[in-house]
Every structure is written in structure tokens, then in C-alpha cells.
């Protein structure tokens, strides 16, 4: 608070108990108030106007002294050019003595004063009587003087001095407030947090300048609008909920992460914290602070994405390792079985005395097993060639229904437990395809249908002519395929891993080969299945290019 100067009426300047004009502490304080060379303001003008009236003095000034001049933050009744200049040189200043003496200066008639009568203020400004009281900071630094001036000689009363002291104190109080405000503004503007005051109607009542720098938006984009105005649609309900919680729970602090839309259209992440000050009359709102956390969020997202990619890569690797292990185990198994026959029967033929008939029989076993090994090797090589594109198809006009009939006839006797049913579209045209490959596809699917329905049942092979396509389906009443395996069964060497499926012989090469062949014909292959009910394999081949 401003100190009151002692009221000591004196007609002469007192010896210095104040500060020199160039005192660095005093000047530093003066500059800190940032009031020099600022325009007149009504709050100060009101003080000088009032002082002039109360004291019945024609002139009243709020004068601030640096080391070269006096600056008038406010002047009342001052002549030109000084009023406009808001300043005079020290040669025209009485107020400087208030600063240097640290006491009020009271002059009845300056012309009679041995020290003041040479002051240019007398001649140039018309100062005859003068009374000034110091403007003192909290730290006891003298910034200047609040003074009243008369062009006639005047006897200043104790009461006049008291009034002036009051005005000095008021002016000083105002300067303090300005300093406080300036500091707050400086702090405020340096804060990048957005501060919103949100009323109980959830409309924005106030927003700070930060929106202009942080979001490149104007204050008008916010004030009077709902609090969710530039919030991401997905975050709005969360935000409204946060406010509802904050309003019902008095003084609670709640926070949330939401996206605000930047002026350039980008979404930026903010950490929102909300304090309920609805019940404080001076605010009567929710105080919402929003801090930009986009960079942190992006960094987090980056880490997450990297982690996901890593996990994905790991799981892909694991999958391919597992598929590789499955492949080796399946291939090893599939090779060893015929190899056992070849080795065993040849051993028997070599070591035992046998009838010619038996030798013939065992040789047949060896031959069949060797054939099986050969097929296995061919399948693997075939798939490899197709996958690496080293295969040429013999495109000829093919009758699909004929192919199906041929295969069904040849497989009918394979299993006594299965009934093969054909449901062929008589309008199916001939189309261009590699007949042998088509036979491979249909055979694979029909054999699978039989093998994977160990309980028997119907296998229905249908052809349907669709718009530009030949659609073949093979439907069974078998084990079915778990949902997670519907795609992977078409991958190389991947087999369904349930016990029932594992008990069915297979290399895991049939479906990959089927897909390769269908792909190379420009078609699609897929499966629909219910575990325990059965599967339907679909093949769709284009017939548009048919001759």
C-alpha cells in the first residue's frame, strides 16, 4: 500500500531525504510501472479534475519524474503546449523537489522563494502557488508528485495537504493496479492454455487470447457459442458429460482429452480440465482450461503404432514360422508314409522267399507309394511354379458340366458313406480355361468334401451360370471350418488344427493349389462354413472371354 507522506507545511524545499532523480532503483521502479509516455486515461484525469475542484486550484497534475523531465500522466487546467506534450523539462519542474526531498512541497508564492524564483515554470506555465505530495511505491521509492497549482499567491491549509495526500494515495493505488494488470496480461498472454468460461447453459461466456495463437481462431468463434463449438463430433458427448459432472459435483476438478479443430482444419488434442465456479458470483461459470497435448499425443500414437507394427510383424513371423513348422511336419509325415511301404516291401522282397504272385503284389505296393511320393513332390513344385508365375495354361474351350460329371463318376466309388449329387445348370456355356487345371480344382474340392466329412453324407456339386461367370459350388455335411480359418486354409501348408481335422489326411497343398489355379484364370475361390454343420466351397470363373 502507498505510504502516506508526513504533512509538514514548509515554504521552502526541505533538504534531501528522498532520492536523487537518477537513482537507479527509483528509475527501475518508474519504468516497471510502464506509465511514461502513455496517453491520458480517464481514471487519472478524474483525479486531477476532482482535486482541482476540491482544492479550488486551477491546475492539478500527476507528475512522474525521470532523470531528464517530468511527465504528466494527467493534467487538469494546464496551458499549451504543455498539456499536449504531457511533459516539461526539469527547468520547469517544482515536482522534482518532492522526489528529491521525499516530502510534500508547499509554496505560497514561488516568486518570493529564494530557490524557486528562477524556475521557468513561473514565467512559462504561470506557477505562483504550488502544493505537491509525493507518489511513493510500496518499497518507499518516490516516482513523482500529485500537485495543485495556482497562478495567484495562496496559503495552503493542513486540510489542503491532507486532500493532496489522499489524491497521491489514490493515484498511486491506480498505478499499482495498472502494474498488476500489466503483469497479469503479460503472464496471461504468455500462457498457451486456452481458458474458457462456460455458463450453466453450456454456452461460452469468455475465452482468452490463446485461441488466436493456439488454434488460429478468433474469440468470436467461441463467445456466445455452445462449448462444443469446435470440438470433434466424437468427443462432444464426453465433453458435455464432463460439464454435467462438474456442475453437479460442486468444486470438483475433472479432466478429459478432446480434439479441437484448428483454423487450418486439423484436429488438435487438448487436455481439458474443468473447475466448477458456478457458485462464485464474480465468475458464475465453469472454468475450463485446455492445454494443447497434440505433440505428446502424436508421440504416444507413434509409439503405439510402432508397437502395433512390431506386434503384427511378430505375429506374422510367428504365423509364418508356425506355417513353416506345420509344413515341415506335414510334408515329413506325408513323405514317410509311402516311404515306409517302399522301404518295407522292398526289404521283404529282398530278404524272404516269396511266391511270384506275392512279389507282384508287393511290387505294386511299392509302385503306388512311389507314385504318391511323386504326386506330392509335383504338387509342391506346381504350387511353387504357380506362385512364382512360371506356368503357362492351355486355354481351350471347356465344358464345365462335362468336367464335373467326369470327376463325380470317378470319385463315386471312393467312399461308400458319401452320396455325390450333381446339380448342373444346363445353360452353362463352354468357356476358355485349362481343362486339366479345372479338373484339378474340382477334384480337389470334391475329394476335400469327402475327406472332411468322415461321418459321410451328401456332397452336392452345383454349377450356376451367372452374369459373365461360371459359378461352381461344392457343398458337404462335414466337419465345417472354424471362422478364424476360413481365409488361412487357402494359405500354403496351413491346415485346420482341430483334432478332427488333423485326423484327416492331407498335405495342406490342395487348397493353395486350387486358389492359384482359380486366380490365374481371373476367378475367385472362397468358402462358407458352419463348424459341425458343413462347408460350401465356391469357385467363380469368368466366361466373358468364351469363344
Amino acid at each position: 500500500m502507498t505510504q502516506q507522506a508526513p504533512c509538514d507545511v514548509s515554504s521552502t524545499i526541505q533538504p534531501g531525504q528522498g532520492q536523487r532523480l537518477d537513482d537507479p532503483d527509483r528509475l527501475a521502479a518508474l519504468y516497471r510501472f510502464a506509465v511514461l509516455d502513455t496517453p491520458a486515461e480517464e481514471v487519472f484525469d478524474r483525479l486531477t479534475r476532482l482535486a482541482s475542484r476540491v482544492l479550488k486550484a486551477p491546475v492539478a497534475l500527476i507528475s512522474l519524474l525521470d532523470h531528464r523531465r517530468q511527465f504528466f500522466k494527467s493534467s487538469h487546467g494546464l496551458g499549451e503546449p504543455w498539456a499536449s506534450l504531457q511533459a516539461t523539462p526539469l527547468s520547469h519542474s517544482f515536482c522534482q523537489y518532492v522526489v528529491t526531498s521525499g516530502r510534500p512541497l508547499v509554496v505560497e508564492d514561488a516568486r518570493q522563494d529564494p530557490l524557486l524564483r528562477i524556475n521557468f515554470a513561473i514565467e512559462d506555465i504561470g506557477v505562483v502557488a504550488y502544493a505537491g505530495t509525493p507518489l511513493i511505491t510500496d518499497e518507499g521509492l518516490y516516482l513523482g508528485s500529485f500537485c495543485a497549482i495556482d497562478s495567484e499567491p495562496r496559503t495552503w491549509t493542513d486540510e489542503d495537504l491532507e486532500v493532496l495526500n489522499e489524491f497521491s494515495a489514490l493515484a498511486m493505488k491506480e498505478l499499482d493496479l495498472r502494474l498488476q494488470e500489466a503483469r497479469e496480461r503479460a503472464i496471461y498472454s504468455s500462457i498457451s492454455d486456452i481458458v474458457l468460461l462456460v455458463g450453466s447453459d453450456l454456452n461460452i461466456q469468455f475465452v482468452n487470447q490463446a485461441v488466436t495463437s493456439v488454434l488460429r481462431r478468433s474469440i468470436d468463434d467461441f463467445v456466445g457459442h455452445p462449448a462444443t463449438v469446435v470440438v470433434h463430433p466424437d468427443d462432444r458427448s464426453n465433453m458435455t458429460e464432463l460439464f454435467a459432472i462438474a456442475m453437479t459435483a460442486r468444486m470438483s476438478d475433472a479432466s478429459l482429452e478432446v480434439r479441437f479443430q484448428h483454423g487450418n482444419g486439423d484436429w488438435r488434442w487438448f487436455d481439458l480440465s474443468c473447475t466448477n465456479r458456478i457458485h462464485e458470483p464474480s465468475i458464475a461459470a465453469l472454468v475450463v482450461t485446455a492445454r494443447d497435448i497434440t505433440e505428446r499425443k502424436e508421440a504416444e500414437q507413434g509409439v503405439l503404432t510402432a508397437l502395433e507394427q512390431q506386434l503384427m510383424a511378430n505375429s506374422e513371423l510367428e504365423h509364418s514360422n508356425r506355417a513353416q513348422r506345420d509344413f515341415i511336419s506335414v510334408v515329413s509325415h506325408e513323405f514317410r508314409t509311402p516311404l515306409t511301404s517302399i522301404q518295407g516291401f522292398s526289404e521283404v522282397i529282398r530278404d524272404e522267399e516269396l511266391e511270384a504272385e506275392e512279389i507282384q503284389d508287393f511290387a505294386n505296393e511299392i509302385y503306388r507309394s512311389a507314385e504318391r511320393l511323386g504326386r506330392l513332390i509335383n504338387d509342391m513344385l506346381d504350387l511353387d511354379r504357380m506362385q512364382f508365375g512360371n506356368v503357362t495354361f492351355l486355354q481351350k474351350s471347356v465344358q464345365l458340366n462335362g468336367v464335373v460329371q467326369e470327376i463325380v463318376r470317378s470319385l463315386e466309388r471312393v467312399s461308400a458313406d458319401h452320396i455325390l449329387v450333381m446339380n448342373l445348370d444346363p445353360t452353362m456355356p463352354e468357356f476358355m480355361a485349362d481343362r486339366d487345371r479345372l479338373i484339378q480344382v474340382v477334384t480337389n474340392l470334391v475329394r476335400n468334401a469327402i475327406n472332411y466329412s468322415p461321418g459321410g453324407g451328401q456332397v452336392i456339386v452345383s454349377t450356376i451360370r451367372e452374369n459373365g461367370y461360371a459359378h461352381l459350388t461344392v457343398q458337404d455335411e462335414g466337419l465345417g471350418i472354424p471362422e478364424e480359418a476360413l481365409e488361412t486354409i487357402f494359405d500354403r501348408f496351413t491346415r485346420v488344427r482341430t483334432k478332427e481335422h488333423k485326423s484327416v489326411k492331407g498335405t495342406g497343398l490342395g487348397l493353395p493349389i486350387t486358389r492359384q489355379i482359380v486366380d490365374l484364370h481371373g476367378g475367385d475361390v472362397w468358402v462358407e462354413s458352419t463348424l459341425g454343420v458343413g462347408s460350401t466351397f465356391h469357385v467363380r470363373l469368368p466366361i466373358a472371354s468364351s469363344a
Partner: protein
Amino acid sequence: MATIVFCEDEASIRKLILTSLRASNHEILMAENGAEGLALIEERRPDVVFTDIAMPVMDGYELWSRIQAHPELRQTPVAVITASVQRDQVEHLKTLGLVHYLAKPFTMSGLREKVREMVEIAALHSTSATQ
């Protein structure tokens, strides 16, 4: 003379086993899968069982657990004949208690040796059971 049940889904391997063991005086019974094998084992109470692992209808694992669950059959020595001979597969068999196995492809002498060994184990079992 012992009674031996073989569970094997490959016809040519069944034929091979029968051929290589026909000189022995054992009674050899053949089943095409685990289910047939179990029925045969329950009916004939063999001294030894040989089983494949990958078979339709009922695989070798299931057969083994059924035998283990059966109080009167659980003492029957069981050997696995399998083409799944990778280390982890063999380890898995051991953890299940299937410690005897013959890997495919096998030689005739290998098969006969394994049969002799399993019959001996069966004899030891029955001796300790009667004592």
C-alpha cells in the same frame, strides 16, 4: 505267443506289418482307426497295442486316453508307430506317457525287434500282476 493289436489307417502299411510278422507265432489283429482298435482291444484284451497317431474317426491320442481311462486296459503296453518324428512331437508323446515308439519308415528287423521288446514288457507286467 502274444496277441497284438495294430491300429493303422494305411492299407499298404497294414499289409506290410502282417507280411513281416507272419513268421512269428503271435496273433496279429488289425484295426483301421482308433475306434475300431478300441473295440478290438476291449473284446480281445491283447498283450500289446501298436497304434498310429494320425488316423480318421479316432486318432492315436484319443485311443491312448481311452485305454488309460479303462481300469482293466490301462496296464496294456502301448507303442506308437508314427511318421511324426520331429523332436517336439516325440517330446509331446513322452509327456502323455507314450514312451515307446517306432518311427516311420521302419525296417522289418526294426519292427520285429520292437514287437519282441513290447511282448517282453507285457510279460513283465503280467508276472508282476500275478505275484
